[in-house]
């Protein structure tokens, strides 16, 4: 079972992503955090296979979260998928350079989430 940590300050968006993840049919243990700071605390506890994070959050942004995960030796196996409403060309490139493994834009479909997860976790259909 793969461990997924969903990070978004909006509880309704966390709910939606968790529901979309269940709809993928993949065998996932889903955890949630409301910002980057809480996500880092949980990440060190559960060592997630994937962190799915929003960018624009109070306390610690998704951008800082990506950088911290990338710098943490304990989380070297953790993949990061950015899920943001910001689809500007510059932001996508910026996050990829910062260490994000994939970048999806909201609104996201369960199919797009599944395809991204399978790709970054190297799961074969």
């Amino acid at each position, binding site marked *: 079972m793969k461990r997924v940590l969903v990070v978004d300050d909006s509880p309704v968006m966390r709910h939606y992503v968790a529901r979309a993840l269940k709809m993928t049919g993949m065998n996932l243990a889903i955890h949630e955090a409301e910002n980057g700071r809480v996500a880092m605390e949980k990440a060190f506890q559960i060592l997630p296979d994937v962190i799915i994070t929003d960018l624009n959050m*109070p306390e610690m942004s998704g951008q800082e979260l990506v950088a911290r995960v990338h710098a943490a030796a304990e989380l070297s196996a953790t993949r990061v998928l950015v899920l943001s*409403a910001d689809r500007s060309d510059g932001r996508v490139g910026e996050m990829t350079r910062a260490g994000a493994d994939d970048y999806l834009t*909201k609104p996201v479909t369960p199919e797009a989430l599944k395809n991204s997860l399978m790709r970054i976790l190297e799961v074969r259909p």
Partner: protein
Amino acid sequence: MSHLLNVPENVVQSAIGQIFQTMYFSETAYRGSARIEAAMLGTAVSFSGEVVGEFRVAVSASLAGRMAEDFLALEPGEASPEQMEAIVMEFANVACGATMSAWRPEANLHYSVPGPLSREGHVSECPYCFSVSGDSPDMGIDIRFE
């Protein structure tokens, strides 16, 4: 704030239509500039960078309830006021990012966390209005630039 800059109607129409199809499984009808008569929930997202301003969203209470039910898979009438407010805020977040990125894909804009509009800031007359639940406009967008 001013309206000297204008986001083309087709950009707003396309972005909002796609969001409603994906997130709420609903079709939208574009009504252009109109007045929303029903009681509304209002929220705004500020943006800065190449252009600076505010993306305002007004949604009728009944549509907000339906959006919450669709998005959270709730039974009819089950959405709480807090859930309705949270749904409208998340919608504004996604709508702002999708619209502004479609309009200026090369611009690296920074967006605020969505916040509620004050009663004075509410927009009853909106330049970009949509009907989702019926024939009357029940959702409006206003994009104001500094």
